[in-house]
């Protein structure tokens, strides 16, 4: 289990826990004390990224950013970039 924890400056705490097999994410859990609506978007993002290749990092980042944009997700205490960051850092952990 790889894990990375990040406190957004002036914002909330984000955590990513993931497992990797054959260069792909096999399980992913995001958590923290941020606010997100609709709340189902977080699970949907986790599902979307499961099976993803972990390289290159920019691939995960673009997927996360476009996911939140297309879902019009309201997030307080963190930005879409912060979510991409904790996931990519957990990959490297």
């Amino acid at each position, binding site marked *: 289990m790889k894990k990375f924890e990040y406190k957004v400056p002036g914002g909330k705490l984000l955590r990513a826990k993931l497992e990797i097999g054959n260069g792909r994410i096999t399980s992913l859990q995001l958590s923290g*004390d941020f606010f997100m*609506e609709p709340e189902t978007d977080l699970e949907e993002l986790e599902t979307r990224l499961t099976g993803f290749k972990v390289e290159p990092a920019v691939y995960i980042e673009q997927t996360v950013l476009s996911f939140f944009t297309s879902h019009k997700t309201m997030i*307080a205490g963190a930005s879409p970039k912060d979510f991409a960051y904790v996931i990519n850092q957990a990959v490297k952990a």
Partner: protein
Amino acid sequence: MPQRFRFLDLKVNDAYTNMAVDEAITKARGEGKVPDTLRFYMWKPSGVTLGYFQSVEDEVNLEALNRFGFDLNRRISGGGAVLNSETGEITYSVILREDDPLMSTDPVESYHLLCQGIIDALDVLGIKAEFKPINDIIVNGKKISGNAQIRRYGAVLHHGTLLVDFDAKQMFGVLKISKEKLSDKMIQQAEDRVTTVRRLLGRPIGFHEVRDALEKGYKKALNAELAKGDLTSYEQELVKQFRERYAGRAWIYRR
């Protein structure tokens, strides 16, 4: 013109019922079956309430939780873990329709507006508090109240907690603030980040005095006319239904 609110006065329930009541009112409000509502409540037994997106293993010391005999629950709203202490705090919720003119599309503005009732309540008690974005109320830089909002069923639920008294051993025993061992030094540091009504007033204050101040504070902040009321039979049915979910392991341990 004042806005009319149904007022559900201070009642004590367990964690699962308390969270089920908040959700039941939110659903009924969104469906237009009940008026805007202000609710004050307390907890028995004490319980840790996780934010919707938090994971149990990262936030809660289960061994200490069981030792103290506290409940564990998860909110439908985001935000951080709270120890809802049966002797140390009052919890409140405000439920409005999502399209209420009081609400802003900017989440931080919405928090500020609905936190103002607590700031005004503390002012009644002679305490100068301020809003700290996103969702906290602080006095002299220390947190005294945490809040969470969620839009659901066409309504907005804003709930939060006001620290009246504080037991550092309990709070930092059950909440994982740091991986460090719970040394006295750690308690001291964490304790420095929070404050309570009793500490600020330097005297023991009863819950009824705090409750009275909250009522005055919310009346002022929301320009509200409060009409004492009860849950409708529809809401009570919803409470039964929702309580089962809140008390279930699938909900509590979902993350």
